[in-house]
């Protein structure tokens, strides 16, 4: 692969890292949600419409999409948070399916089957890394905070968390808001890089591969999804030579192997701590 191709690939890796952080934000609170794909779709088509039809500047479109994503996160949370784990996951998948149907049928707004254009002004390294950095910064700051500890607790054992006065629903609501904001930003950037979005741009495939990236990288630390996304975007490009268009076979295999043999992913603080703990006792003995 030449340099230009790598440049593009890595830019898309950056965008999928933001999507991955969007999934992570919910997963942190114990919710498996593919809603980020839906948030991305809504924000991308809104972005295309407000910039090209209404005539807002792209930056305003980005801000609008991020805010709208947060709002959408709240609405989604109210809709689905009453459900138990499996059904919650299902409901968010249903949301993705419904999103595509909406795109297909709201032709005036989305271009229907044909899709629509989006301005490419924000499709630069600066905006990509800026948004990614912002998302990562927010998550890193929240780690040791009141919310961060509560989120981890709810994920590890919601019943015990409740007995400490933590309301899982409100923690998960915050998770959805973060997920919505990040998903909104990612949608706009995806649209900016592609400069064209259609009904299949934000569909189950994006959701499942992003989820795979989160699982590979590790869903217990914000660094995990970023690393996972970069690996998962670069790997198919590397495999395209030997495997042709069927590179996703490796994606599938990898996913199964990781969840079985490396269930906490590449970035696993627990393993690090275990190792560190062992080291200590070894020294003191």
């Amino acid at each position, binding site marked *: 692969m030449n340099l230009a191709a790598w440049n593009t690939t890595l830019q898309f890796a950056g965008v999928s890292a933001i999507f991955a952080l969007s999934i992570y934000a919910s997963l942190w609170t114990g919710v*498996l949600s593919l809603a980020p794909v839906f948030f991305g779709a809504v924000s991308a088509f809104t972005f295309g419409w407000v910039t090209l039809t209404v005539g807002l500047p792209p930056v305003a479109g980005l801000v609008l999409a991020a805010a709208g994503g947060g709002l959408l996160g709240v609405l989604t949370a109210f*809709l*689905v948070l*009453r*459900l*138990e*784990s*499996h*059904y919650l*996951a*299902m*409901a968010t*998948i*249903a*949301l993705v*399916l*419904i999103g595509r*149907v*909406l795109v*297909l*049928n709201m032709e005036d707004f989305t271009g229907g089957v044909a899709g629509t254009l989006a301005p490419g002004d924000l499709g630069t390294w600066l905006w990509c890394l800026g948004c990614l950095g912002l998302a990562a910064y927010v998550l890193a700051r929240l780690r040791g905070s009141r919310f961060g500890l509560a989120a981890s607790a709810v994920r590890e054992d*919601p*019943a015990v968390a409740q007995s400490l006065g933590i309301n899982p629903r409100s923690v998960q609501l915050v998770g959805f808001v973060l997920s919505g904001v990040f998903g909104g930003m990612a949608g706009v950037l995806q649209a900016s890089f592609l400069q064209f979005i259609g009904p299949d741009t934000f569909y189950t495939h994006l959701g*499942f*591969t992003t*989820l*795979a990236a989160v*699982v590979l990288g590790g869903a217990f630390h914000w660094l995990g999804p970023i690393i996972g996304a970069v690996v998962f975007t670069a790997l198919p490009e590397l495999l395209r030579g030997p495997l042709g268009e*069927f590179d*996703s*076979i490796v*994606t*599938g*295999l*990898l*996913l*199964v192997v990781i*969840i*079985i043999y490396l*269930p906490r992913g590449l970035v696993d603080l627990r393993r690090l701590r275990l190792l560190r703990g062992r080291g200590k006792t070894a020294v003191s003995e």
Partner: protein
Amino acid sequence: MTLVIQQLVNGLALGAVYALFGVGFALILTKMGILNVAHGTFATWGALVAYFAVADVGLPFPLALVVGVVAAGVIGVLTDLVAFEPLRRRNAGLFAPIIASIGMWILLLTVAQAVFGATATSFPDHAVPSGPIKFAGLVILPAQLLNIAAALLVAFGLHLALTRTRFGAAVRAISADPRSATIVGVNAARTLRLVAFTAAAIAGLAGVLAGLSSNNVSFDLGEALLLKGFAAVVVGGYGDIRGAALAGFMIGILEVVSAQYISSGFRDAITFGVLLVILVLRPQGMFGERKLARA
């Protein structure tokens, strides 16, 4: 009036495939606790294998159907062994199997595409009698009758097997608590394999019938089924296999009727809209009683 009845029949025939698929999907979901995203690919593989048995090997259709169904069942068992069994042993919780099934889904879908190619075909015309049966002003295709009969037979057969037989008792024991079931003498491994086979074989059957009645066999045939079958399970409820079957039929009718009277473009929107509304309004119905942790 005839038109309405005709549409009911068409809807039932379409819904029969959803019902069939939904029943197998529900079996895995409710008895094994696995939301198996790869279930649609079992249908695909069933249909593709049956297609090759007819078109390339030259088997008669009934035999090819059996081959396709068994092939799907075997793939289901392999999936269970490769992806789910290690997690079961580790007691990995709820999310890990979903993620493993996403991996299997990507894998099986891509391999299907690689092996069979991306172009769609259909079963040869002589596969089943294609002459419509005319009855009281209605036009009914033999394939439609086959769908409805298969769905009813499988749904009630499976229901009886689960409620009246030793196999059913073993399944219930394992789904309540795998470890104590083994202690009581249930052969857990064999039961689990049998459930995996049954569920996938039913998906294979749904795949073959879907390919037959839509005149379309392709590597992504199972994807649409997955979404509809999934809707059928949610709408039909968690407790009873028959609920999923009933909901499958209802969704079929809903689709045919809404395509006729509203717009064919919004057909899927209506199905998934109903799905979401049910999910949100009747969550307790879906998951039984509120889950309570035991301290």
